[in-house]
């Protein structure tokens, strides 16, 4: 694996799959509108090579006013799967901390799960985000430490496998103090110890 480690992120090239392409396409619009966002969860493992499909790509975005959201809505050449218009999407979903789902026209999967920051963990993901330069395309992802901790917290087999994959890829570069700090704050020290034992 050839990755250039930047001061605050990663630069690399790969043969893009449809999840990479969809993420790049969506994030290029967020970049254009200068929105503060971060891609989180399962796509992080997939970005770095985990070989599994996914139904969605999760994106957390800093809260914005309706005017800005409408600008985004108009630029997205996608179907919104759970709202018919920008007003419903904003007022019925985003401000109520519900996610919007966007897919390509006439398709259902994969889709982008798009939501406003709703708690301190989301805020931490935004504040600690890392830049990815993938085949010259720029987007932002959550830190590997936060990604691993949160996957252990979620705790399904799939989540624990994702955490294990990201850990194995980056174990020589992880900030273990930070990772274990998240583990303590999430109150999952026992789960973490069990997970680590399974990795040996």
């Amino acid at each position, binding site marked *: 694996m050839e990755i250039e480690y930047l001061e605050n992120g990663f630069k690399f090239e790969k*043969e893009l799959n449809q999840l990479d392409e969809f993420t790049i396409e969506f994030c290029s619009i967020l970049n254009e509108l200068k929105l503060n966002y971060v891609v989180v969860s399962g796509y992080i493992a997939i970005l770095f090579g985990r070989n599994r499909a996914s139904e969605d790509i999760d994106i957390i975005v800093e809260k914005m006013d309706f005017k800005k959201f409408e600008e985004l809505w108009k630029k997205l050449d996608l179907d919104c799967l759970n709202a018919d218009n920008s007003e419903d999407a904003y007022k019925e979903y985003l401000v109520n901390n519900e996610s919007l789902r966007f897919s390509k026209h006439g398709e259902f999967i994969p889709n982008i799960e798009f939501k406003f920051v709703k708690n301190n963990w989301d805020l931490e993901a935004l504040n600690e985000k890392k830049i990815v330069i993938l085949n010259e395309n720029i987007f932002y992802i959550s830190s590997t430490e936060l990604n691993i901790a949160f996957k252990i917290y979620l705790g399904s087999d799939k989540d624990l496998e994702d955490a*294990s994959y990201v850990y194995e890829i980056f174990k020589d570069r992880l900030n273990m103090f930070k990772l274990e700090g998240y583990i303590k704050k999430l109150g999952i020290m026992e789960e973490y110890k069990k997970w680590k034992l399974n990795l040996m």
Partner: protein
Amino acid sequence: MEIELDVKELEGFKEKNFKDRLAFIKKYAEWVKKSTNKEWSSQQKKIINK
């Protein structure tokens, strides 16, 4: 006919299956780290774009 299920035995299988999966993921990650980006990403593309 009633099927007799040994739930404890099934739990054991489940646990072993999960450990096997993690062992495979570890081996796969080691392979990705040793491979060129072109090698692993072209294989990944075949699975994801199915």
